[in-house]
């Protein structure tokens, strides 16, 4: 069931929105992004086109994640200076949403964590220890992230050029990750667990390689 149908203010193409959590739509025809909610549509301009075909995931792909069907709704790409990573926004068949972070072709399934005290960004340094869900994490990387591309449907207002400070931590057994985004106060914390290759099955894995 679609919850809305919007027309791109730039090219007029229509877009069906199926998930009620979606508030940003990037037009797949002209690359224009709109923030959309029940009240109004705001045009935020043309976004960078993200190259496709370099990942198992792609906008509109369907597959199975941990034995549950899902569809990929959108993607945000962040640069950290020495490279980039992608955050894929997926909708599960039961209507729930999830983020899959892809870094160097490895995927982390992330859920928002509200019960973690994290240090201020200024006091962070590599190898500092943070505990979440009784699991120790060690900071691996601290830096500035800049959005360098968006596509599809997203549950957050997002456009190219937005920046925030971030810290990535990992549990020493290599099973879990902790992502801290210093985009608001208190910071947004995501608890994630690394997925094995077999945890995701794409309907179309691609035979072109």
């Amino acid at each position: 069931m679609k919850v809305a149908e919007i027309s791109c203010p730039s090219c007029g193409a229509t877009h069906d929105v199926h998930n009620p959590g979606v508030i940003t739509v990037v037009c797949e025809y002209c690359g224009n992004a709109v923030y959309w909610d029940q009240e109004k549509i705001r045009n935020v301009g043309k976004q960078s086109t993200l190259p496709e075909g370099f990942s198992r995931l792609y906008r509109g792909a369907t597959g199975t994640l941990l034995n549950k069907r899902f569809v990929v709704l959108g993607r945000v790409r962040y640069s950290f200076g020495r490279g980039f990573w992608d955050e894929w926004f997926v909708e599960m068949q039961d209507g729930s949403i999830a983020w899959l972070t892809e870094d160097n072709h490895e995927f982390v399934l992330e859920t928002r964590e509200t019960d973690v005290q994290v240090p201020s960004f200024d006091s962070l340094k590599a190898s500092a220890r943070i505990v979440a869900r009784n699991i120790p994490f060690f900071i691996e990387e601290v830096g500035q992230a800049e959005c360098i591309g968006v596509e599809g449907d997203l549950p957050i207002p997002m456009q190219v050029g937005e920046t925030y400070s971030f810290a990535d931590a990992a549990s020493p057994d290599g099973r879990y990750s902790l992502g801290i985004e210093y985009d608001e106060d208190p910071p947004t914390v995501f608890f994630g667990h690394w997925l094995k290759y077999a945890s995701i099955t794409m309907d179309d894995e691609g035979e072109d390689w």
Partner: protein
Amino acid sequence: MSTMDKERFGLNQGRPRPPYQPQDIHCPGCGAGLTVKDEQARMVVCEYCGKHLDVSLEEKTVLGQGPERKWEFPLKIGDSFRYKGARYEIIARQAFIEDNDYTEVTREYLLYNPRRGTLYLSEYGGSYDLAWDTHVMPTTSPFNLSRGSTLETHDGRKWVALESGEYELAFVDGSLPWVAKVGDRSRYVDFADKGGANERFDVQWTANEVEYSSGISLTLEQVRQATSKPELGQGVVRRRSEDVVKTRRWYMILLLFCVAVLAFNGIMALYCMFSGRQVLEQTFTPAQLTEEVLSEPFPVSSDGNVIMVEATAISMTNAWMALDLALVKDAETVVHVFDEDIQYYQGSEGGESWSEGSREVTSYIEVPAAGNYRVLLHAVSAPGETPSATNAQHGVRIRVTDGVRLPHFYVVLTILTIIVFFISLVLYGNWRKQEE
């Protein structure tokens, strides 16, 4: 859920996969067209002019010219490598040297699959390893570990250090997701599974970054199959590398065996010391010893029994005693004559006390026949500075134990084992310090 929503999640209801299309760029140095297969590439080496290019931004820039020296690689950029049913392609090659020795070369290939990521295939002396990045960390510091040291990782695995050292990048071509500079150095420690499984754990670090990788060793035949190159490695003399895990295990077995033998000997020596039954304890005065004196009778229970005779000079300090003894059967027949010198000195020097000798001596005698026996004693004793004496100035307590077992065998074995143990320990220490 509506039918339409069900359809959205149905098998193959999604959008068709967009095609994989590598990026085409032009070398800003020579203008040649280059193909970049990895979207994450940050550095490309122009295959025509050898310039190192920064391709991380829209505008490609020249980082510098590559080294003139070219390196031989048995595998080429673009060669395929199959692993776990997927095809990877070699997108970069690197040559590392150690200690400025150009004969000590490790060749590393970066394998790429756009859906699975990157793997590292390395070759040293004809031996191949396949590795991939891991997030598992060691429980203790992996730095400065020598060969044979053990390491545990947070996933519960145990590893043995194979070797450590410092690599220097001597050559690179292809495209890399990082910027590599010839001359870059990084330290490393390589580990193998302690249990002997064919698995590896490696740590590499530079001044500001530590990286961990897991992997496996590959046989030449496996690499030939994976690359579909049956001729690979032909004519190359494969360097025989030591099986560090096995060598370490042999040292451990040897050391543990020594410890076990020492423990066994100790137990047996104690058993010997406390075996038997005390059949006599008698004290003799100096006057009795100056004359000749027979002890009370005591029984020896079986033919061939060994008896232990312990003699203790009472309150003797800074003096000596010459003690003559004889074993007498039925108060008539002397069956064994023996003597003991007892000396005991003590004092203090420079505020530290010292002692030398002992007030106690022990003799073991094999008694041919069972029966009643006595000990015949005669002694003379004098202070240390007196060279000779005609009478005893100290008393003696005699203890006789029947049916004891001789600990000599175990004492000799213990000494030999201790020697073997320390030699093994020194050899093991030297082996750990040596790099292969």
